[in-house]
């Protein structure tokens, strides 16, 4: 018995290490079973969770794992085979396509510039808004580094700019709107979308940018405590007209994004990316479901539905 015990233990460990390749879905569509994994952008995380929950209700034998680590991490994970789908919140670049990235757009959302709700200049900012060039000088060139350079005031409080430290879609999109790249945004790098929202909520003179879902509270449909959006003065006339003022509720803002009143960039389509067109039946069914039945969960979650032509195009790709 003494000699057998170690051999017994080792064989138990080895056998339990063998795993069925449960990624292979069964051939019957109504009885999908297996598990798939997703990773990537914080922007898509809440939506993907909702979709996964609803899909798993329809297919109880399917398990969907989701983790958020930034869009860049998602792309790296899917291209190296670690996950089945990447949640990607920026445009797929040519070098990524060369490595096999194959994307389906699933929904739309946007990035907004944010400040602390106790910022003393909030009222003025809400009436005049800021122009693209002013944002450029705050985030990129650093020419406007104190609040008195925006408004004629006596105080010389510095503008504390916050950026994203992880490779992500939000920063890339905001930088793209200003004509530059994420690395050219000059600010303190904080990790993750919730991270930058927290940093802005804690600092009175902070400025940053966030995805829609991390600014608004899904339940009240209004902005969360402590954070406010700086309206962008699109027609550059020095004040925020009625058409430019759509920041109070989620419905107003998603309508603005849908009708392109809020341009892209900083709004953009969000993608699920796989390495090549996926062979996994669960993945294809999930994507098809998202483009059809899944779209009805989008507006409740605070995202923007895709226009019909885009949906048709994506479905064609999936055939």
């Amino acid at each position: 018995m003494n000699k057998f015990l170690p051999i017994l233990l080792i064989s138990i460990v080895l056998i339990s290490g063998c795993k069925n390749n449960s990624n292979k879905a069964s051939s019957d569509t109504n009885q999908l079973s297996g598990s798939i994994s997703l990773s990537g952008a914080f922007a898509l995380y809440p939506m993907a969770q909702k979709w996964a929950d609803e899909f798993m209700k329809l297919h109880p034998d399917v398990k969907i794992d989701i983790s958020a680590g930034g869009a860049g991490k998602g792309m790296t994970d899917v291209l190296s085979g670690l996950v089945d789908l990447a949640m990607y919140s920026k445009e797929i670049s040519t070098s990524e396509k060369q490595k096999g990235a194959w994307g389906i757009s699933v929904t739309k959302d946007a990035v907004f510039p944010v400040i602390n709700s106790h910022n003393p200049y909030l009222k003025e900012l809400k009436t005049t808004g800021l122009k693209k060039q002013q944002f450029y000088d705050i985030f990129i060139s650093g020419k406007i580094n104190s609040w008195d350079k925006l408004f004629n005031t006596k105080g010389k409080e510095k503008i504390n700019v916050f950026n994203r430290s992880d490779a992500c879609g939000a920063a890339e999109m905001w930088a793209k709107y200003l004509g530059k790249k994420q690395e050219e945004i000059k600010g303190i790098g904080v990790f993750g979308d919730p991270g930058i929202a927290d940093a802005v909520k804690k600092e009175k003179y902070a400025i940053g940018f966030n995805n829609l879902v991390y600014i608004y509270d899904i339940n009240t449909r209004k902005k969360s405590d402590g954070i406010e959006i700086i309206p962008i003065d699109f027609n550059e006339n020095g004040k925020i007209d009625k058409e430019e003022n759509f920041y109070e509720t989620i419905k107003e803002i998603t309508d603005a994004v849908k009708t392109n009143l809020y341009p892209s960039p900083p709004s953009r389509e969000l993608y699920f990316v796989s390495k090549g067109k996926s062979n996994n039946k669960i993945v294809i069914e999930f994507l098809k479901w998202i483009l059809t039945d899944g779209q009805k969960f989008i507006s409740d979650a605070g995202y923007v539905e895709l226009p019909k032509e885009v949906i048709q195009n994506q479905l064609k790709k999936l055939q």
Partner: protein
Amino acid sequence: MLGRILKDKINKTWMLICIIIIIIIPLLLIAGLCYKSSFILEKHSLTELLFTKEWSPWNNKFGFLTFIISSMWVTAFAILISAPLCLLSAIYLTQYSKVIYLKIIQPIIDILAGIPSVVYGVWGILIVVPFVSEYIAPVFNADTTGYSILSGSIVLSIMIIPYILNILIEIFKTIPDELMEASLSLGATKWEAIKTVLLRKTFSGIISSFVLGLSRAFGETIAVLMVVGNMIHIPHSVFDAGYPLPALIANNYGEMLSIPMYDSALMFSALILLFIVLLFNLFSRLVIGRYEKKRF
């Protein structure tokens, strides 16, 4: 008879295989890093990579100087804070206090060593960053959000205390009491005895413990990147944000496959890290070796 000799030989071989595996794994690691970095070294010269400031990977510009300098600042200040603290504590614990205190403190220090890096990072964000921005910065008339080299150094210094302190305590314990008593009997004060006998005899050990702390500090990733600010510029004061090398790798490995040459650049920075730590170790051995020669 042959059976027993065979068994003996087999047992010897098992152990030989184990030690070969232990030696081969780091060598494989270095070989892998070198291979991956070779791609970027073909396109850019070593001086251009190590000594230029411009970091724009999408423009094919990879200048690591800002990151190397940031790393050096954070590590230097961490050692500056931690080394005197540890040295004086070790002297007090082994020479002045009752033995029972040493017995109580040592497990506490081991607990400090076991706390995960991320926990230090979260503590740093919650406590150290506001502390630096509200209490320390106004004393020096500096304006900072708190995410700075100083916060990184403070968090790092706490993290390396267990390593330095434990080694120092072990070293000081090896000095026999009789040696100290001999110098005291000749009329030296306690502090003089410590300075001339204890510290001199253990000097090489003290240096090697500092170097160990330094290497740990240089490579510490998560805790530092959460509080250091992650801004790509050369810091001009401790209250500026910085961007150490390990933070570069941890923050950007997500973009690795999206920009050409980026993965090679990040592997190269890992190689730089490895190389600098090896350099420190080599340097400390030289110092110790020279010191030993002088004494005898």
